[in-house]
């Protein structure tokens, strides 16, 4: 039995690196200490449903093939294509992503990653107005006001609060765990009083929701406080000091209204996005009065009405707050290495996603060169998907067009994408069976570890891509001779 410490978890953008993996004598992971449910599920079950050999579609059926056959077929598809789309990238290492850029350049294709359906609007917002941010330790050490806006870490980034925000201890701020426990006790008492009153008074008695009473008392205490802004009350909102329920599709108005107040302006209306202006004024008082505030945001902003304009507004709000106090903002990146995919693409091509290399040099025009748009217009005549499952997530019209053309899928497990593929190349699991580098949501790079041996004959993403690249070059040379 071996204990491997300081293992990084290859699941979400929180990218915890304190996981302890226990491996038994048969090369099987039996425990993943410190991991959340998602991390533990991956470490313990990753191998249960993996594809065992490369597969090629012949006469409509997927049949087993050797790695060489599959590589040859994949290379052929790419060489014959006029405008191939190479998509995915977010669940693999930077080492693989670097080869990916070279491959896309060699075949004159489009390189796009999952940002295109996730935080792409955040990138567009940054390109418009910049961003005031920091590494997560700055929040842990200094943040006394934490806002989760359109983001639900309780489900999507479970250890985020305990590692970096409300339940973490820093040099200048302590965990607000005891606050949370008091609040829980308070909630339970409330429920008891409510039930008792209903029994005695024989009518329905409800405490008014948060914003009709003014902000909770804890918002004015000198300790870490958390606000959740969302369209529905999530588990994170339960744990927060204050929950602001914004009307769906009205985040942009709310953000801009807050900006007006931060800049000492007056609002002509009584409520914005369903929230009374009095509450907003109290909120701004708290924001302006904090020592260091941080706004984390998620897909509720990037994928609702307004998209990148929402992000523009959110970033501008935090930027304006910097003239009063220290305020930061950060997108809650989903996949553990989507940040790496953007970073690698940017350093090699100058652009973070939706990079068109078909003219021999990088071009970037989201809406024109982004995956979903290219597929909607049926412009790509072949696709390579790696470390991602677009058929499960893209709009149906786009996926239908994926099905019309040759598809290569580099994926260890059966997914809707692999089910449409013409070539499947199952790789090792990076971060479990293969080493590498990946970037946390705050741009901190960390090593991915190898904790167990991969099965015999399996290549890593990087090796598969390298082989395809070599084969592509060979085929192109053959064509020229």
């Amino acid at each position, binding site marked *: 039995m071996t204990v491997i*410490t*300081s293992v*990084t978890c290859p699941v979400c953008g929180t990218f915890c*690196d*304190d996981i302890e993996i226990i491996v038994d004598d048969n090369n099987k992971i039996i425990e993943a200490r410190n991991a959340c449910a998602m991390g533990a599920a991956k470490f313990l079950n990753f191998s249960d449903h993996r594809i065992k050999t490369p597969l090629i579609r012949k006469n409509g059926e997927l049949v087993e093939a050797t790695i060489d056959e599959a590589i040859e077929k994949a290379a052929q598809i790419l060489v014959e294509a006029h405008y191939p789309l190479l998509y995915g990238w977010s669940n693999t290492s*930077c080492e693989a992503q*670097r080869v990916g850029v*070279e491959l896309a*350049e060699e075949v004159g294709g489009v390189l796009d990653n999952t940002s295109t359906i996730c935080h792409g609007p955040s*990138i567009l917002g*940054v*390109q*418009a*107005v*910049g*961003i*005031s*941010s*920091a*590494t*997560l*330790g*700055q929040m*842990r*050490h*200094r943040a006394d006001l934490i806002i989760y806006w359109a983001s639900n870490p309780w489900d999507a980034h479970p250890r985020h609060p305990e*590692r*970096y925000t409300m339940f973490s201890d820093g*040099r*200048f701020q302590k965990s607000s765990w005891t606050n949370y426990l008091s609040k829980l006790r308070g909630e339970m008492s409330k429920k008891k009083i409510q039930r008792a009153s209903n029994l005695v008074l024989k009518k329905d008695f409800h405490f008014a929701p948060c914003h009709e009473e003014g902000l909770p008392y804890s918002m004015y205490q000198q300790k870490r406080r958390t606000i959740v802004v969302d369209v529905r009350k999530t588990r994170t909102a339960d744990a927060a000091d204050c929950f602001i329920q914004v009307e769906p599709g009205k985040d942009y108005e709310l953000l801009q209204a807050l900006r007006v107040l931060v800049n000492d302006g007056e609002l002509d209306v009584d409520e914005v996005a369903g929230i009374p202006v009095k509450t907003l004024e109290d909120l701004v008082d708290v924001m302006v009065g904090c*020592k*260091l505030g941080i706004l984390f945001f998620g897909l509720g902003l990037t994928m609702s009405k307004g998209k990148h304009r929402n992000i523009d507004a959110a970033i501008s709000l935090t*930027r304006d707050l*910097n003239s009063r*106090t*220290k305020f*930061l903002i950060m997108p809650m990146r989903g996949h553990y290495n989507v940040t790496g995919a*953007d*970073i690698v693409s*940017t*350093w*090699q*091509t*100058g*652009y*973070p996603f939706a990079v068109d*290399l078909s*003219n*021999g*040099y*990088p071009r*970037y025009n989201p809406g024109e060169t982004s995956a979903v748009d290219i597929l909607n217009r049926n412009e790509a005549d072949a696709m390579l998907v790696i470390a991602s499952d677009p058929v499960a997530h893209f709009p149906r019209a786009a996926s239908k067009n994926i099905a019309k053309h040759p598809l290569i899928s580099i994926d260890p497990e059966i997914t809707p994408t692999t089910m449409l593929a013409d070539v499947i190349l199952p790789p090792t699991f990076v971060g479990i069976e293969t080493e590498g*580098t990946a*970037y946390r949501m705050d*741009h*901190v*790079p*960390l*090593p991915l570890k190898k904790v167990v041996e991969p099965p015999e004959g399996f290549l890593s993403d990087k090796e598969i891509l390298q082989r395809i690249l070599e084969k592509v070059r060979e085929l192109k040379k053959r064509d020229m001779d």
Partner: protein
Amino acid sequence: MTELIAKNGFIYDPLNRINGEKMDICIRDGKIVDSVKDKADVVDASGMIVMPGGIDIHSHIAGGEVDTARLLRPEDHVKDVEVKTALTRSGVGYSLPSTFTTGYRYSRMGYTTVMNPSMAPLQARHTHEELSDTPMIDKATYPLIGDWWFSLEHIRDGLIEENAAHIAWMLKATRGYAIKLVNPGGLEAWGFGRNVHSLDDTVPNFGITPREIIRGLCKVNTLLNLPHTIHLHTNNLGRPGNYVTALESMKCVEDLAREDKPVMHITHIQFCAFKGEDWGNLSSGAEEISHYINNHSHVTLDMGQVVFSDTTTLTADGPFQYGLYHLTGNKWVNHDVETETSGGIVPFRYKRSSAVHATQWSIALEIALLIKDPWKILMTTDHPNGGPFTSYPKIMTWLISKGAREKVLRKINKRARKKSLLPTIDRELSLYELAVVTRAGQAKALGLKDKGHLGVGADADIAIYNINPERADPSKKFEAARQAFTSAAYTIKSGQIVVKNGEIVKPIFGKTYWVDVKTSMPQEVNDDIKKKFREYWTVEYENYPIQEGFLHSSAPLTVKAEV
């Protein structure tokens, strides 16, 4: 055994005091040697000048900040693309070139070594990944340690030797080359949105002053015997009247100098040489700065020359960059790094018509020409802050030709022209002096013993430019000189011809230098840092240091410390 001989060129090798003599340079296996056999490949350098390959002591080319700036500015790239060729990768340029393009463009100008001057230690891995994808040049990088909590605490408590041992650990963990300080104390204050405004301001929460930080790290540098001195971006950068802070920073380590050798390098001095009370009456502090440097030998400088162009400012000076956002209204990126440092990015355009920008343009040139000893003032633009490194050939002509300067002076803002000292300065750097400020002096300041010269034993990094000093005076024919410096006739890197007539003919990758400091009790330092790690950082101790194999081609310089 690859042998090469560069025949018959005019050699400019200041470290070996060769000033334009016609000589042959013999190369074998990547080094300059005494002689080669008859069947060596010949490079005909007749009618051309031969210099050591260019060296850049301060250029932001790789890492988190640079990459975020690239991401921020697609508009910077769209106007300047590099098409893929059989030998080279595609890319984009202008003020924030992609990594492959960066390497190719330096090499085309005859440059062979570039120092990335700013690296947040926590994100060092990123810098090294990008350097591994930067071809053609040798490189190194400086970790930002001026606001590192361990430094601040040790220096406050007077534990200089302890700090030295910890910094030795840090240099190895991040594979760094030198101790970099940016607005010391100010970056920690910026963690809560504040700043420091003089050498004697107290840093909030740490009870230490910038003066103490600078002096403390200067002592550490000496104890560690590092090849370069501390590399300082001064407090109050970019503020009118800040030349006073620059002088105070130089004075504050006067007593720590040993045997006339430099103990401090102040970078991009132009940004720290402002006289005046506000932007309305900004003028040049070049005279005061040059006067001090002419009378002292413990400080070296680099220029930070401004070029009239659209560019991008990016520095670790978070509070300064925020101020620049207010000044310009441009998009602003801020990125603080826990426990260590900060950073900011703001696009910026320098205009001839602006009195302030035109004064800035004049300042760096005044300093370079008023300082008598060229070994003390090196050529940089603080790329991309003052301008893209591709403007070096232009700047070289400003240094060697009064005529070239006058051409620019005629078109700049009238007020600035009136105030500029340049019309009164006739000095033109000779080719020998130019070789000092762009190669020999840079190597000497960096402690790179095998670089910056063409003597036997040196690395065979050589630039051959199509300038014939016997036929045409480069100070008069400066346009032709500029063209020659833009497209080297030959660039030889590690003994191989990699560029011919400004085109890449052989793509290669260089080495990454770092200092391997040997201290007496490294295990104790490891244990100390390990114990405190989780209190300071949000990553695990084991995941912080970079393994040597991670570097594409690691080239450590071993030094023995006095701790």
